[in-house]
Structures are given as C-alpha cells and as structure tokens.
C-alpha cells in the first residue's frame, strides 16, 4: 500500500484513502473542437494512453480524505512517487521532475 502525499492535505496518507484516476493532462476538447474532430481524432482523446514505462503523470482522487483530485508523477517501474501537485498546474518539466527527485 503506497503512502501518497496529498498536496491539499499536505501530508502523506495511505493509498486506500485514494482512488487512481488515470493518466493526467489529457484535456477534454472543447465543444467547438469536438464538432470538428474526426472519429479517429476523438478516439485518440478517448482511448490512446502513453502507458509509459518510467515517469508517469497521473491523477489521483483523495476520495476518503479531502475529496480533491490532484496530479502525481510516479515511476511505473519502481512505483516511487516523484511529486504530487494540485489540479490545474501544468505538466512538470524534466527539470522540475529532476529537482523533485533530489
């Protein structure tokens, strides 16, 4: 069971309080874009995932806690969390990730 740092509660909490919510930073196309998108483009948004073997940006929901969704960078081979950050913040740069590892 992971121990996950919730950026809103600002403390580490056990994984069973959280629900995994999939890859992060997949932005839902706005109404106009949806209208213009082909089925193929739309399926990219809907289904295609990086599924990286390495540092993965992903969403978690502190379901049994502050009830907030947030983002995390986690290494999918070691399962180690590099950082967590609030919803709305952009994808961290390579440098930010490297700094967080220090």
């Amino acid at each position, binding site marked *: *069971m992971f121990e996950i740092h919730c950026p809103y509660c600002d403390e580490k909490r056990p994984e069973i309080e959280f629900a995994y919510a999939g890859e992060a930073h997949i932005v839902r196309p706005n109404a106009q874009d949806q209208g213009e998108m082909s089925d193929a483009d739309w399926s*990219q948004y*809907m*289904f295609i995932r990086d*599924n990286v073997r390495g540092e993965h940006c992903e969403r978690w929901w502190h379901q049994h806690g502050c009830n907030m969704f947030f983002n995390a960078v986690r290494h999918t081979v070691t*399962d180690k969390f590099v950082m967590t950050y609030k919803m709305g913040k952009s994808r961290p740069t390579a440098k930010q990730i490297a700094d967080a590892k220090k």
Partner: protein
Amino acid sequence: MKYSAVSLFANALSGHKNWPEQFPDKAPKKEYDVIIVGGGGHGLGAAYYLAKKHGITNVAVLEKGWIGGGNTGRNTTIIRSNYLFDESAGIYDHAVDLWDGLSQELNYNVMFSKRGVLMLAHNVHDVQSFQRHVHANRLNGVDNKWLTPQQCKDFLPILDISEDRRYPVMGGALQMRAGTARHDSVAWGYARAASKLGVDIIQNCKVTGIKRGADGAVEGVETEKGYIGAKKIGVSAAGNSSVLMEMAGLRFPLESYPLQALVSEPVKPVLNCVVMSNAVHAYISQSDKGELVIGAGTDQYTSYSQRGALHIIEHTLMSICEIFPIFKRQRMLRSWGGIVDVTPDRSPIVGKTPVPGLYVNCGWGTGGFKATPGAADMLAHTIAHDAPHKINAPFNLDRFVGGRLIDEAAAAAVAH
C-alpha cells in the same frame, strides 16, 4: 527425441544422461522472414503455427528474459470459453478446441485438465447475467450450463449454499469443457515443437528498437544482441506492448496494471473444479500438486513493477474465506505479480497495425492464458496472410474509432 513412456524408460536406464536440449539456444541470424517479439506462450505458439500450418520456418522468437517468464508463468491457468459475445466466444472457443489435443500435437504434456469451471451467482443481477451467457453460449455451440444452488452443491460438495450467507449462492454457470493446464509446459512445449521445425528461440535478447524503411514498412529490430532484419514482425509482449509499439511510432489504447496471484501450501485433493465469483471477487482451483491457486484483482494504478499491494491479497483471501470457510485455516505459500495490458473494452487487439509488416497480439488483460493456442494461431494466420482470420478480424484497432467495442465487462453490467 520423441517423448513417451518408452523413451522415459529407456532414458532412465541410461541415467537420464541422453535427453537433448528442448529448445536449443541459438545465436540470431542476420535476417528472418518473421520475428516474433515475446517468448511467452502466445509468441512461441505463433512461431510454431507459422512453421507448422503456414510453412514459414525462417522465424525467430526474441525473448528479453527467459521463455515463459512473463504472464505465461505467472497466471492462475484457468481455461474457459463461456463468453457472451459471438466474437469472444469465437476466439476463446477456438482456443479451447486447440487446447484439446495440444499435448498430443506438441508431444509434450501440457496437462490440460477439463475439470470444469463453475461461476457462482450471488444476486439476482448475477443470475440474469449468467442466464444470458448460458443461453447465448448454447446457441453458439459453446458448452455452458446453468446449475441451481443444489446442483452446484452436488457438483462441488464443499460449497456452502446456505441462504443466510452474506453472499448466498443463487446458482452457477458450469462449463465442463473448461479447466486448467500446466502453464510452464505450454511455453516449453511450443518452444520445443517450434524449435524442431526450425524456429530460432533466442533468449536474453531484449528488443530496443524497431526499424522502419522509407516506405514505412518494418525492416528489422535493434536488440541487445545486435540488429536483426525481418520482413515481418509480430509483437506479442503482453504488459510491455505499449513500449514496443512506441518503438514503431505507434501509440496504443493500452494500460498496464499489476495483477497478483497466490498459492497455498499443497494439501490432499479437496477442490475438484475451478470456481469463480464476480460478486465476491475471487477465483480458485487446486493444482495437480495440491496447491490452491488463487487469483487476485488488479491493483488500481498502472505499473510495470511486477509487485502488488498487500491489501489486494487481503481482499482476495477474505473473499475466498467467504465463499469457502473451509479454507480459512489453509496457508498462503507464495504470492507474486504480473503485468497485464488492458484495452478500453478489455478485449484483445489481434491483427494488423498501421505500420506495414507489423502485427500485434496484445490487450488480453487477465484473459491471456486461456486464449494461448487461439491467439497464437490467429497471430500466425494474420502474419502469414497479411490479413486477419475471420475469428480475429473483429479484434482490430479500428473498433476504438468507430465505437464497435467488444465489451464483455460492460455487458455483465453493474448492479442496479
């Protein structure tokens, strides 16, 4: 050397010193007609069928570790085909057809044991859903029958069918043709048979890149053992499929999750079939060694760590004890994790890719082992003909664009 009781006897007299290697290690050639990436049951099987059915023997199977070391050797060995949709019933039942007789075909005992798979219904919704399966299977010619609670008990005497249980048994669906097989033997049996037909099995040979020509078609693979040319490449790499597809510049509708399983200490025979329960979330059988083989659910997050969380094991064993209070005193001997690749509709992708010469067999999720011979046969067919067989044609990539998903889990639906 042909395997038989006779050869076993003869070799015993010579101290078993003359058995040949089952799948000799080969150094890679410069080029192959077909390279299969992934030395699990699916990949080795595909190589075997390419050679056996399609006469394509200039084939290499590249395995980054040791053959059968991935999900083939990490699953709970359940084989069944009582799926709802025609497409799923088609491919899984084809697999069961091939399982039957596979030991003889390969001259290698894979110990396919048709002991029956009993799926328990615990609420009205399960009953409706299972009945739907039973009826659909009947009209599809797939063996699966509905049992009342008492019939379940008659078939499996240790089952507790009292009505006051938290999850009472309200009936079950039994596929008698289903069962288990010895997982390692499947990989080894295919490897040995393919090897005899001229296929090169190359272990400890991780693929690090897929080379494509000016026309976009594949030309070969970069590996730890150097560049190897290939006219066609079939990727059958389960949890690592996304990583390999990425090498060819493709992004796939896949996510890889940890899946755990465990066994108990061996005890004398007590469980004569495979039992599955969706509502309680557990499945269990007893191996020929006497171990209770138990499947757990996936962890919630994607991961390649082959390591899962304790609470998943706890929940699985809670469920086993809930269905079988008789097993509460048994002891967990060993637990382990695998990586399963899951598509959005939890059905596999078996067929061509947008890259010419690149074929894929992935997305089997938790259902891969049972499909082994079927998936292997279909991958081989698709590679040989550069076109899918009608059995695997529906399991294409395009379904995610148009929306014609094959969603067994959605059809099993959710409680209302």
